[in-house]
């Protein structure tokens, strides 16, 4: 259901009948066909509760804990993307302030907190470093009946954790290749120079790494 790196779900494209009408965007949550049986598990270390406390109570202690965990990660990501340390510092503070102001938009059935923060940081990178606007898909409107369900939240958060664990478990060389491929830095000659591997080997390693990830998601 999460479909990480797996587009096979699309081959049977008859899943959705999209009413096209006057170019209206589609609506979410029309895919609850097979609600999984969910074991009663407590969500740990997902930060979801922290965001709820920020949204509901403007809880500064919850924010401080989130900040301590994520701000250094966002800063490192921005520096890796080419920002100077002082620019990365400033942008990171703006990212974390955006998190506070947009906490009510966070949907734990669609993203982990880390994923959500990543998207804010990525958009900041495009805005501040690349000086471009970032077109985002039309917001999905939440009617009262479309309130995310606890089971959906649990599954999404667990799968995100598994993905993170899988990423951590990868041999560092494979992990690096995936990251380079993801961020578009996969210049073949550069990788060959870096790893001393010919192109064919790099490609098969990448496939191996991706299939390992996919395996873990099942």
């Amino acid at each position, binding site marked *: 259901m*999460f*479909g*990480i*790196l797996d587009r096979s*779900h*699309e081959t049977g*494209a*008859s*899943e*959705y*009948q*999209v009413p*096209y*009408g006057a*170019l209206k*965007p*589609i609506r979410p949550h*029309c*895919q609850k066909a097979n609600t999984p049986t969910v074991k009663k598990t407590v969500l740990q270390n997902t930060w979801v509760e922290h965001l709820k406390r920020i949204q509901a109570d403007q809880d*500064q202690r919850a924010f401080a804990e989130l*900040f*301590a965990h994520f701000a*250094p*990660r966002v800063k*490192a*990501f921005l520096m*890796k993307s080419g920002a100077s340390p002082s620019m990365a*510092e400033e942008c*990171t*503070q703006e990212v974390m*302030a955006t998190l506070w*102001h*947009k906490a009510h938009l966070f949907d734990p059935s*669609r*993203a982990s907190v*880390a*994923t959500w923060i*990543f*998207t804010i*940081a*990525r*958009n900041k*990178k495009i805005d501040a470093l*690349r000086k*471009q*606007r*970032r*077109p*985002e*898909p*039309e917001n999905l409107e939440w009617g009262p009946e479309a309130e995310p369900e606890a089971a959906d939240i649990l599954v999404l958060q667990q*799968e*995100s954790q598994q*993905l993170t664990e899988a*990423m951590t478990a990868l041999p560092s060389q494979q992990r690096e290749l*995936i*990251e380079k491929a*993801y*961020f*578009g830095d996969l210049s073949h000659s550069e990788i060959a120079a870096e790893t001393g591997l010919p192109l064919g080997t790099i490609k098969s390693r990448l496939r191996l790494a991706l299939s390992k990830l996919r395996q873990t998601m099942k």
Partner: protein
Amino acid sequence: MNNMTQIKHHLTDQLLIGYAAGTLPEAFNLVVATHLSMCDSCRAAAQAYDAIGGAFLETDAQASMDEGALEETLALIGKGPSAAKPMAASDVPSPLGAYIGGGLGDVKWRSVGMGVRQAVLSTSKSATARLLYIPAGAAVPDHGHRGTELTLVLQGAFRDATARFAAGDVEVANEDLNHTPVAEIGEDCICLAATDAPLRFNSWIPRMAQPFLRI
């Protein structure tokens, strides 16, 4: 317009990854965001690729924040959120509406000959986005590509040598594709197209027209 339409031609994984990682030119991001607004399946895939970015963020290096960073951020929060621009009502998905400044009725079309009209949208220079208006039954001049061209159908349908593309479908054309898109009889076809290289037309008249096309 009221019949059920099913999207058959989707974004490639490469484009979805580039959109998630934030490495595409702005014009491509616009096509991707507009397609995602119309396509559940690609939206789910895009969210999965976002999750990979989240996993990198979670497990990657850290850079220590300056002293007093938390207090500064709280002060920043105290100033309130930056005002969001109010969105005008639109008959196109909101990411595209923001670039048009309204709906299809607000587009400033320019004729490019043979009944075809276009409107270039303002994006960063590394790629060009434009709306194309192709009258029912008319053809867009035969052209090859030096780079990648994305064409998303907003209304009507077109055919070329490879397939039929209807509302919501996106065609991803690379250097190898030399094609003549023809709008289907029955309805004028409106597309959002983006290219990261100037098109080169294969016949004489369109080549003359190229400077006016601003591509």
